[in-house]
């Protein structure tokens, strides 16, 4: 069983939250946009949102400047 994170296939872990996935992927950026199957997950819900099986996850880190 797997999920896709930023186009990379990684193992699906049962009951893993967004927060845990970010940690597992070693994404340490302070500000990110996370989309699961094209739906934005709000930061407040990272610790309670479970990654579903076969999910496509996008993690974009937001950098200051404009």
């Amino acid at each position, binding site marked *: 069983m797997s999920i896709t994170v930023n186009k990379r296939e990684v193992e699906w872990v049962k009951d893993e939250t967004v927060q845990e996935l970010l940690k597992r992927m070693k994404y340490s950026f302070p500000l990110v946009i996370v989309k699961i199957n094209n739906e*934005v997950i709000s930061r407040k819900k990272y610790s309670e949102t479970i990654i579903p099986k076969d999910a496509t996850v996008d993690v974009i880190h937001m950098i*200051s400047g*404009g």
Partner: protein
Amino acid sequence: MGSMVKKTMKKGAVKAQQVRSQLQQYTIGIAGLGGLGSNVAVSLVRAGIGGLVLVDFDRVDESNLNRQHYFLSHLGQKKTDALTSILKSINPRCTITTYDTKLTPGSMDKSFHSVDVIIEALDDAAMKTAFIEEIQQKLPHTPLVSASGVSGYGHIDRIQIKKMGTLTIVYDPDAKDVEDDILVAPRVNLIAQWQTNIAIEVLLGEHQ
């Protein structure tokens, strides 16, 4: 030979007219009128966009002139006013609505309910993140074009397009935060124009 050239030009002119009259029907909202937003607005007006909704609370400062589309004569003016006068001097028929206000979490969507595409052109990463989250939740069907990683110069080949449903981000994952790098006109403007180009593709139904 002469007639062939003439024919080709005619075809081009017809297409140009078609694109302009299509763009004429649409309105684009721009959040932030700095290095990204001011340059996006100028380009959209030149391309023939029908309307713009411009949101920024700031005034023009001398430090802005290294990359933002303002002039010395605008110093101290509200960015919404300065930019409106520039845009009107390019195309007075573009309908411009301005909000001289700071975007605050909880009501960030307020000015953008009647636009066809939203451009995220904010500078602070925390604000960018909050804006994308809120707009995608409250206006999930409105295409949103964002940018992340504009600082520095060179490294054009690092810039990529991340398309995720209605959200598209022009993105350089290896760019530094502005705290650790500089903002220079060509790269900021390049990313602004990339955002503009995507917005036009979206409006003309060609963005894949």
